[in-house]
């Protein structure tokens, strides 16, 4: 379960300043849409988790991943830090800090536990991978896949990672790559950028990839496409299984109408009109997709819940950041709380 943060959106917006050209507006929209709902209508809240903090650990932009023991692994892009938490929110370990040295990060966006127990992190800015010991108390390796930026990653095995990122300098770069941690090579690349040509430059600067797996199927979303892509993980490279339209209401992605590279405010005006897809969670019988909307320095998290066949279930505006899902249980930061170390968990009500 992977979720990029508002911080990522903000910094992706900053990247937009470096690479966008003027082009005409293009809006993609699904043919069907979901009924809107409120949080209390769609979630039975079961409890809260107060994530431990101290004078070294402050949760600012947490991105959560599951640990194998039921705990949580956190990558915090703004704090350049990764953390290990028990399932009750007790802090077990901290690693990283700002910098370029071994074990340091610029903007970590992903941390996973490999099947052999090691931890691997990925940095958004330079796509650097860092392999830590199981307790995150020593750095075992650093690797630099030839990608920029790195959006996301998933372990396929102890030897292989699925990386989501762009190959530098290629507008048509595939988005997904199988990275071999032993040979330090890309073994396969797939999923071409799923946008029309007029959005290619925008996709270069405003692209996030959501990833999740269920059983042996990989699910992927791209920020500028209202389509869910499925791949079978039993083959290398993963075999395309199909696509599901995301029944999102008012999906808005388009290139800037003017050059926004020189103006923070112009860039923000453009970003505030977009609703890019940011994450996908493959639940037992449905999908929960998050899409964002920038409001000043903040990002609103909207939820779209739909059945496996694409039938819409509900759409929730400003539901908060969904950190992870486990079975039918979702863990999220309630947008009304606005405190990223106070999480809620609950189940989606049947509709």
């Amino acid at each position: 379960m992977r979720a990029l943060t508002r911080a990522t959106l903000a910094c992706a917006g900053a990247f937009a300043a470096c690479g966008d050209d003027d082009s005409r507006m293009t809006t993609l929209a699904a043919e069907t849409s979901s009924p809107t709902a409120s949080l209390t209508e769609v979630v039975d809240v079961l409890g809260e988790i107060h994530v431990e903090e101290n004078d070294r650990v402050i949760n600012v932009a947490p991105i959560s991943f599951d640990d194998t023991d039921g705990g949580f692994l956190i990558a915090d892009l703004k704090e350049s830090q990764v953390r290990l938490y028990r399932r009750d929110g007790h802090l077990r370990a901290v690693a990283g800090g700002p910098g370029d040295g071994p074990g340091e990060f610029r903007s970590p966006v992903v941390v996973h536990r490999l099947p052999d127990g090691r931890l691997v992190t990925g940095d958004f800015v330079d796509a650097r991978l860092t392999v830590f010991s199981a307790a995150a108390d020593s750095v075992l390796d650093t690797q630099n896949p030839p990608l920029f930026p790195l959006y996301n990653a998933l372990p396929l095995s102890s030897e292989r990672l699925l990386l989501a990122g762009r190959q530098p300098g290629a507008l048509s770069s595939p988005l997904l790559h199988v990275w071999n941690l032993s040979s330090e090579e890309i073994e396969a690349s797939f999923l071409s950028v799923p946008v029309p040509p007029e959005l290619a430059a925008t996709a270069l600067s405003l692209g996030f990839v959501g990833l999740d797996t269920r059983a042996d199927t990989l699910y992927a979303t791209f920020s500028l496409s209202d389509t869910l892509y499925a791949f079978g993980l039993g083959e290398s490279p993963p075999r395309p299984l199909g696509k599901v339209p995301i029944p999102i209401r008012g999906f808005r992605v388009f290139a800037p109408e003017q050059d926004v590279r020189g103006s923070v405010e112009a860039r923000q005006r453009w970003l505030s009109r977009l609703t890019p897809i940011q994450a996908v969670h493959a639940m037992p019988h449905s999908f929960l997709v998050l899409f964002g909307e920038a409001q000043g320095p903040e990002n609103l998290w909207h939820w779209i819940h739909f059945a496996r066949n694409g039938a819409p279930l509900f759409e929730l505006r400003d539901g908060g950041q969904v950190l992870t899902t486990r079975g039918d249980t979702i863990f999220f930061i309630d947008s009304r709380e606005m405190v990223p170390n106070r999480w809620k968990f609950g189940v989606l009500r049947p509709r």
Partner: protein
Amino acid sequence: MEIRRSKTAIGFLTILGMSGAAIGGLGAGGELRPGDPTPETWRGHDRASPVLAWVFRGEDCLSCLTPAYDLRRFQAKYGDKLTLWTVSVEDRKNMAFPFLRQERIEAVHRSLDMDSYHHAFARTELPALYLSFRDTIRGLWRPRSNGGGGVAGPNPTVRDMVAELMARAGYRD
């Protein structure tokens, strides 16, 4: 160094809602600079312990290059022993409060228009981070990148100076 009475102190007095005499001191060229005397209205606040003032425009909240990382660290380490002020200038879209909340910065915050800013800080370029202690401006910094286009990283100079001044103010780890 020119010490002049000006509206500067009055401006900051208004901004921060403080009481005190409005006798300010600005450096040559009309900007606050390291080594300049602290404006009168700051003095009651920076005498016992340092004052760190982050002055920015609303649009600066949209940048990755802010001192938020350092400010969080200072707050976590020193708590209310270190006085932190945030001042937003021309925040037409009210970005400051969401930004400070999102960045988890708790500070005495005020907003002011550009005229008031010029009265208080003359033509000092924005954004800026001021460190003041015992009636003297000790530091003035601009945000800087961590080198990779991501969020701004820590500024060791700020950290070291704050630590030094906090120690002189009697703070012990």
